[in-house]
């Protein structure tokens, strides 16, 4: 239906910042998907001496165990971005459904959900996460679930606030009078109108989850070795900084670049949708 053409047209009109952001995101996704093809070595393979400098054989040198830095950067993209993405999706699923339910049903449902969220939000997220992860262990599913639940509280807040403004509209009352089921009202009447702020928030949340994950890894409770991950890569090689070597900053830079890129795209998207216009 010409959607592809419209998308292309939209991209051509996008400001440079948004294009740059999209480029960064595509680059990272490409790296993540084709990591095995693009890298000279295997993810956990020890290929040389420890802390080898940049050179012909190891473009970005080796790490504290003698694994190729470049290879691990690529695989790190795959692991960290993948996990962060799944976590954010899950957080949005939980948070948005909860928020919409609270707004549409109101009454005791709203009270119960909102108070639970208040309690969870009252505890600093990082400390709470550390606490739970030390109890349940640091497997990848546990990591995803814990961060998703903690993060869904913020999504809940936003989704509820946005939906509150929508459920008072007459068209929602029309749907109720028609006898529509709860799920239909949420999916067809509330969700499409709540989407722009939620998508914008998705971008930001993704960055926060990403940083949170890296922070946990840095503290040793995130993605566990030998799996490559940018957060733990910074920690493991941090000693190099004292020798004036920038290698440990590369994964940190990769994190920063992605965050900036995502935010550029989110800004552009918010600007586009703020006018509630639909390109034909």
């Amino acid at each position: 239906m010409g959607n592809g053409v419209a998308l292309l047209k939209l991209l051509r009109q996008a400001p440079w910042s948004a294009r740059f952001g999209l480029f960064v995101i595509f680059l990272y996704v490409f790296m993540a998907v084709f990591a095995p093809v693009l890298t000279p070595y295997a993810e956990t393979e020890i290929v040389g001496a420890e802390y080898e400098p940049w050179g012909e054989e190891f473009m970005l040198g080796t790490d504290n165990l003698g694994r190729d830095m470049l290879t691990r950067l690529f695989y790190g993209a795959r692991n960290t971005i993948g996990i962060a993405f799944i976590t954010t999706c899950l957080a949005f699923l939980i948070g948005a459904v909860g928020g919409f339910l609270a707004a549409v049903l109101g009454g005791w449902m709203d009270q119960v959900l909102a108070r639970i969220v208040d309690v969870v939000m009252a505890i600093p997220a990082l400390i709470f996460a550390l606490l739970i992860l030390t109890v349940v262990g640091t497997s990848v599913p546990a990591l995803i679930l814990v961060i998703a639940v903690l993060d869904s509280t913020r999504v809940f807040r936003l989704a509820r606030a946005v939906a509150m403004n929508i459920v008072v509209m007459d068209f929602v009352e029309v749907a109720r009078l028609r006898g529509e089921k709860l799920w239909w009202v949420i999916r067809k009447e509330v969700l499409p109108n709540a989407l722009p702020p939620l998508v914008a928030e998705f971008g930001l949340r993704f960055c926060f989850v990403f940083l949170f994950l890296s922070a946990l890894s840095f503290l040793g409770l995130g993605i566990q070795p030998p799996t490559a991950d940018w957060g733990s890569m910074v920690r493991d090689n941090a000693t190099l900084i004292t020798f004036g070597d920038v290698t440990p900053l590369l994964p940190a830079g990769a994190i920063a670049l992605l965050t900036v890129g995502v935010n550029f795209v989110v800004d552009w998207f918010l600007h586009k949708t703020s006018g509630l216009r639909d390109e034909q």
Partner: protein
Amino acid sequence: MSNKSGSGAKTDILLEMRGLTIEGQADEQWHEIVHGIDIELRRGEVLGLIGESGAGKSTIGIAGMGYARPGCRIVGGSIVFDGIDLITASEETKRKLRGSRIAYVAQSAAASFNPAHKLIDQFTESPVQHGIKARIEAEADAKTLYRRLQLPDPDTIGYRYPHQVSGGQLQRAMTAMAMSCRPDLIVFDEPTTALDVTTQIEVLAAMKEVVRQFNTAAIYITHDLAVVAQMADRIMVLRHGHLVEEGRAHEIMARPKEDYTRQLIAVRTFRKESEGQNDAELPILKVENLSASYGGSGGLIVLKNIDFEIRRARTVAVVGESGSGKSTLARAITGLLPPLQGRVLYKGEELPPALARRGLDQLRRLQMIYQMPDTALNPRQRVRDIIGRPLGFYLGLKGAKQEGRIKELLEMIELEPKEFINRFPGELSGGQKQRICIARALAAEPELIICDEVTSALDQLVAEEILKLLQRLQDELHVSYMFITHDLATVKAIADEIVVMLQGEIVEQGAKQEILTPPHHAYTELLLSSVPEMDSGWLDSVLEKRKAIAAT
């Protein structure tokens, strides 16, 4: 009104706009919205600007203050106020004029007052700021003006906050505020549009009085010709940023030259021929001894012992001012607000009080149309989905059959199917949106449609089209309407029976002829006599009559 104040030594012309051209911004482009309008206003003269929405009347009125709203810009012409060219004047000069020599009264007084300050504090702000009066003098002056505007408790009302007084009182307090520096010119921008008819008449009378007393010139902007006929000495009829016709108020009313003006005057002359009712048939809807409250049995009672019925293919108008409980009645009937006591019978069968307990077929037969078509349509759904959903939901129509029915419905509401079926609500005008709402209600093939103030958000000409459409649909499909409105002109046009409500109770009910012919119930009389008529002497004669009654 006889304002012959042109004999002074000062120049007679207070405000002169020549070739005024204003552009507005839409879709990041500038479009001309006012095309070279000439306006002359003498001292003490009241000029009425009238037209439907988009006519540019507010834009022109505000330009009289040398101001363009955000998204608008003045691109051509001259605006001269008492010898000062407002286009070339500095911001500083204009700021000194505004509030002291030119004042503005907005449509929504509630939105224009700062809710955090007392009325009198907001009154004294501009005279003190402009250095015209000291605070104490200004306060005394406020009380005088409040008294002149016939506000209750003029000595103390100023010490209340905006939310503590009624809408009509607030509008008069706003007029007092505009008068605080005894300006030469006041711009009234639809000051009574948001008010009930009974309140409107008080506000109009007060404004007219005070403008006459202080010999203030005024630009009165409205879409209601009957209202402007009461206020203005001279009327300019505008359409799409062009001048249609200009002349003395009574001349325009008596001998309009242009077709468009004639249409505006003829508005509200549409009448339904009401036939006798068929008593043998069971009423479609019967409400028995219904009471309802907000906040459970201990809460505020908003409906008391309501009894009425609606028969097939009939229109029952429920009339009352805001707060009379007429919309709550609709909520109780539809099940959105389960009543405290009483029953709602549908063709003799009792409807479950709560919405969730009603069956699909019970829901289908009773549809609703809302006041604000903007919020009654989901902005993210296309016309196809909006009308298609009830077809699929109630009648199980799918695919080509559904598509065919949507097109039929669009034709029924006089919109070209091919052109409109894929549009979003944002791409429709107000009248078109309301038509889509009607089509959505019709799609369910209902027997009763509750119309909640369906025409009050629309321009008069558009509203009349909608009324005619509803009437035609009733003739063809034999649906019944419960027509909730505060506008008696609408009632006269479309109703078979009338239910008059006051503070949650039915004051009077019966066939239209019965209710509209005297003797009336006192409240019905008040409502009826408050509807402005297309006659420039109407306001004065009504006020005199009321005074005479009060004196006896």
